[in-house]
């Protein structure tokens, strides 16, 4: 078992306008990259601020390496933050920005210089040491903000949507770089984002947040393949969610029926008994349409529109019961179904997840 570095225990926070955090708990292991993922206003920034000490929890404890930090002010916590707005001090040059925390620690001048040089090298900004923040581009400011926070060798680095202000290309590049830094330094990262792709790409574990609670905490794969709630299924990736009743179970397969028709479900991954309501999440990229009925499936539908999506064709359909679904096909636009055509939905049952069902191997 890995060592638990940070432990949030039953944190509650209310700013006077309803609960922002309602009883959240989370353990983060040393060296882990954990992402808090959620829409704006879900409480992820408040959680981060409670860890850094910039906000105090109404209830609950914050432990770091077993030590209770709940009542420590931010300057006494071995935790540093990379702010969304970078928050570089505009009246200090790059070097002084990075050196600020070291100077506060009372390190001697030569050690500070050495550390600042190392940090600037680490983020590839050595030649900009003398520049003022106003002379730097967004991506460069970002690097300095990271260097400044890492200079103090924090046990835990908090990153509040650090890539939010960058354009897509720079974002992708910085994602790779951040991940490299984290691996190289072995520092524990807690990362905030509302971008699910970013979360899936970078994290060891993702905590999906919604109105002050964790909906699910798990590896990107678990979150993607075995969503615990409907919200998680919809927030991560694109999918169609089918709600039906279990008609029969035989061996490893159950048959579900709803107003659109009936379809098979892998019964090994969830406890299914006849009569039970079952929500199934089928990822858009795993949903297929067929011109002919598929054995086991009975989901006829009418094509609404076929759209080219770069390398694949997305087919938008209306099912017999009126629900909408999206399927992916690898054909060319010329082979795609025409609006009004009748097609049949199908998928590999092993690749669809019963929401709230146990994940693989569990």
């Amino acid at each position: 078992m890995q060592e638990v570095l940070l432990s949030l225990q039953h944190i509650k926070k209310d700013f006077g306008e309803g609960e922002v955090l309602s009883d959240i708990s989370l353990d983060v292991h040393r060296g882990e990259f954990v992402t808090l993922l959620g829409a704006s206003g879900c409480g992820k920034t408040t959680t981060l601020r409670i860890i850094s000490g910039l906000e105090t929890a109404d209830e609950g404890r914050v432990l770091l390496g077993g030590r209770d930090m709940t009542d420590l002010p931010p300057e006494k916590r071995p935790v540093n933050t990379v702010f969304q707005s970078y928050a570089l001090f505009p009246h200090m040059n790059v070097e002084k920005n990075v050196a600020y925390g070291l100077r506060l620690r009372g390190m001697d001048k030569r050690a500070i210089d050495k550390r600042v040089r190392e940090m600037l090298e680490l983020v590839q900004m050595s030649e900009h040491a003398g520049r003022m923040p106003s002379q730097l581009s967004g991506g460069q400011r970002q690097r300095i903000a990271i260097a400044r926070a890492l200079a103090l060798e924090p046990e835990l680095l908090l990153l509040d949507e650090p890539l939010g202000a960058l354009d897509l290309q720079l974002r992708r590049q910085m994602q790779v770089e951040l991940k490299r830094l984290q691996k190289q330094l072995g520092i524990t990262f807690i990362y905030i984002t509302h971008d699910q792709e970013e979360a899936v790409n970078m994290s060891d574990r993702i905590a999906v947040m919604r109105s002050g609670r964790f909906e699910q905490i798990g590896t990107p794969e678990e979150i993607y393949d075995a969503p615990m709630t409907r919200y998680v299924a919809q927030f991560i990736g694109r999918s169609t969610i089918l709600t039906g009743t279990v008609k029969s179970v035989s061996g490893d397969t159950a048959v579900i029926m709803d107003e659109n028709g009936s379809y098979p479900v892998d019964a090994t991954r969830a406890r299914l008994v006849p009569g039970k309501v079952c929500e199934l999440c089928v990822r858009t990229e795993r949903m297929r349409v067929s011109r002919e009925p598929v054995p086991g499936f009975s989901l006829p539908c009418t094509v609404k529109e076929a759209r080219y999506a770069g390398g694949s064709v997305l087919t938008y359909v209306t099912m017999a019961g009126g629900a909408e679904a999206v399927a992916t096909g690898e054909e060319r636009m010329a082979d795609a179904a025409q609006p009004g055509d009748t097609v049949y939905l199908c998928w590999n049952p092993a690749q669809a997840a019963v929401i709230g069902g146990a994940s693989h191997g569990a």
Partner: protein
Amino acid sequence: MTAKRRRKRKLFSPIYLTLVLIILYLPILMVIIYSFNSGRTIGAWQGFTTSWYTRLFGNALMADALKNSLILAVLSSALAGIIGTLGAIGLTRSHFRSAGLVETVATLPMMIPELVLGMAYLALFTAIGVKLGMGALILTHTTFCIPYVFINVKSRLIGMDPALEEAARDLGASPMRVLRDITLPLIMPSVVSGMMLSAAMSLDDVVISFFVTSAETTTLPLKVYTGLRSGGTPEINALSTLMLGAIFLAVALSQLLRARSDKKLNSAQ
């Protein structure tokens, strides 16, 4: 037709602007010009001279008034600088419920007629036994200067990213260290700009000073005022010109500092 109208409109704006500027600045220009007039009356130009300035500097009473005015302006703007800045930091950084009320009350003296303020101070000082003179002048000038610093500094603090102070805390700075290393350096241009405005306000105040000064302590604006009542001399014109220069310089410096620091702060965000 439309071209003609456009031409008309094109002519109208500059003419209007020129008229407004003339109405605003002609009287002031007159004072400046006639401070170099060798004759004694405004309106009759009798040749150029700087003798009024020489006489002004030779006048011991004037020198005394100048000294008083400068001491008063420096001390009251410095005090207003400290009090106004602390007030602005306190009010913007703490979120107590009556902050808005306190703020209105704090800036209200700018709106109250000076005559009323002057009388009020006189009544208060007499009632509690404050000796009229320099002490009373400094007290009153500081009071009416505070809003200028307060408003200036407050707008800067509101425009500042709160994450700057939080980042400093996060890097290990105590609240006092944050004030010293981050907040004060960043608001300093606004503090100085507010103090410059304060100095300008203090340098030209007549009404309030009139009520709270003593017979032995006189300031330059009071000197101008009493000088005019006894007929007015070109010496007074010369004095007014010098004061104008000083005040213009203070205001210009204040604006310049503001503009420069705004630019610096905005481009860094």
